[in-house]
């Protein structure tokens, strides 16, 4: 489908200007990461004379991948739990009639407008009390809590569209709600699960404020915190910092290039429903 508001050369000019604005920072970041410090000083933004992997080797040496591992652990565990408990909560909200149905659904929905900062101090104190301060597990609770509203809205809307006849026949056979949910409803949710997983994974992978407040040691830091630590540590070694940023951005971009349509539609669906 084509929408031709403008055509020809102006169209290309506009498209290329936007391409430069969106793409150039990435290009410069990547190119600079292959430079030596001396070369950067003499000509900061030129194309590197040779592609040196020195900065990347330094990152490996400094255990940059520890941050990756932490982010991966936290994101994967949180997303799996969110999928299970959000789908469970959505089941009665979407398919059963009870008095508190609407109020509970609205209560969850309100969560989408609540600023994280409003919960920050109590969660900080709570996490300390639970002995989870500066641990990866301390992050999982808040991540799940703030991912629930969007996820429940997506699942509920999706489940409402599943025909009722399916479970009525199962009910005749004396099937319990639990079996009904696991064996009949949950397997039908695949598209919604994909949306919920993609949407939440991207947000949790890049999450910053909880990680900043609830962890302290480099050992338990996630990637966004790691990026800042390296930024402080490298101070004047700008190509080193660019290597950190490039490597830190790589995982999501790789996944994006592999499954572009899935990611884009997942994000769009997640945001609009939410």
């Amino acid at each position, binding site marked *: 489908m084509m929408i031709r508001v403008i055509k020809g050369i102006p169209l290309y000019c506009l498209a290329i200007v936007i*391409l430069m604005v969106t793409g150039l920072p990435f290009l410069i970041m990547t190119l600079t990461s292959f430079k030596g410090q001396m070369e950067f000083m003499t000509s900061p933004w030129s194309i590197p004379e040779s592609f040196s992997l020195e900065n990347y080797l330094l990152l490996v040496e400094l255990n940059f991948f520890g941050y990756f591992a932490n982010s991966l652990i936290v994101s994967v565990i949180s997303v799996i739990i969110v999928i299970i408990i959000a789908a469970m909560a959505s089941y009665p909200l979407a398919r059963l009639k009870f008095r508190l149905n609407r109020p509970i659904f609205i209560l969850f929905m309100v*969560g989408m407008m609540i600023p994280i900062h409003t919960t920050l101090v109590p969660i900080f104190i709570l996490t300390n009390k639970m002995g989870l301060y500066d641990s990866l597990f301390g992050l999982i609770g808040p991540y799940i809590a703030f991912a629930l509203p969007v996820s429940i809205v997506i699942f509920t809307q999706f489940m409402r569209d599943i025909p009722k006849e399916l479970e009525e026949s199962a009910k005749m056979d004396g099937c319990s709600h639990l079996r009904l949910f696991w064996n009949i409803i949950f397997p039908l949710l695949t598209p919604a699960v994909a949306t919920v997983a993609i949407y939440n994974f991207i947000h949790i992978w890049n999450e910053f404020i909880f990680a900043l407040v609830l962890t302290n040691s480099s050992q338990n830091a996630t990637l966004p915190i790691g990026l800042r630590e390296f930024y402080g540590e490298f101070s004047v070694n700008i190509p080193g910092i660019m290597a950190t*940023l490039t490597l830190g951005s790589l995982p999501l971009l790789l996944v994006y290039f592999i499954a572009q349509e899935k990611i884009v539609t997942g994000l769009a669906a997640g945001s609009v429903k939410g």
Partner: protein
Amino acid sequence: MSKAQEFSINGMARVRKRKKNKDTWAIIGFIAPAFIIYGVYVIYSIFMTFYYSTFNWTGIDANMVFIGLENYKQLFQDGVFWTSIQNNFLLVIASLLTQLPVGLIMALLLFSPIKGIRLFRSVYFMPFLMSTVAIGILFIFIYEGNYGLLNSILGAIGLESLETAWIGKENTAIWAVIATVCWQFAPFYMILFRATIVGIPEELYEAADIDGASGWQRFKNITLPLLRPIIITSAILSVIGSLKYFDLIYVMTGGGPNNSTELMATYMYKQTFTNFNMGYGSSISFSMFIIAFIVTAFMLLGDKSNGGNE
């Protein structure tokens, strides 16, 4: 009524009651895990934030002094807090006026007859996937005053006079930061608009072609009206997001120089975790909640009275 009938009615009622009981337990069981986590981390926390905001408290020691609404009184007289609210609303307006239109233009470009459209599509979306912290650090070097990329480009095209330390000066810092926020989020609105445009039936455009409609007419009469619901949704998302914005500002300027880029969220963080004023910090964060709540309520009501989609 015969005895038999009475029995059977009683029996049915009992069966129904038992089933209802069973349902109740199932409902509780299914909702409980999500509800408990959400209740503890979100609902309970909001109440506790208000509770803490009525104390004079550093957060590190046990010495909490109840002072009622004194923190809020102080907040009203706090110039930095007003600056931060002003900046938040500046961000709201700038986001609505830049992110949404730019996002729409980008989405429309993706449906235009351009060679190599796949490249454009892939690159256009990239900023949104980069972590905000990485964006912040990268743009510190783009805006850097001596050798920064922006100044280098300005120098190369003969605009040396415009060169400045973009985020180091009070009058340019806020705009430099807002531009970065736009760079990050315009692609996000692009994909929202794109997803909607994909769903517009081709026949509508064909019919318009037969009527001899121009490109602009087609856009104005077909695309734009059908995009209305998603534009409203995007506007709501953009406003809510701007009111609680934090990451990028914290990384790039920390609210400086001289509080010129301070937002409610960065000021709250500074008071709470840098100055250890947990009571006062809590009063800022509770105010954020109230403001977000009021603005959201207004937008949803406005949307409804305009015959909004939901």
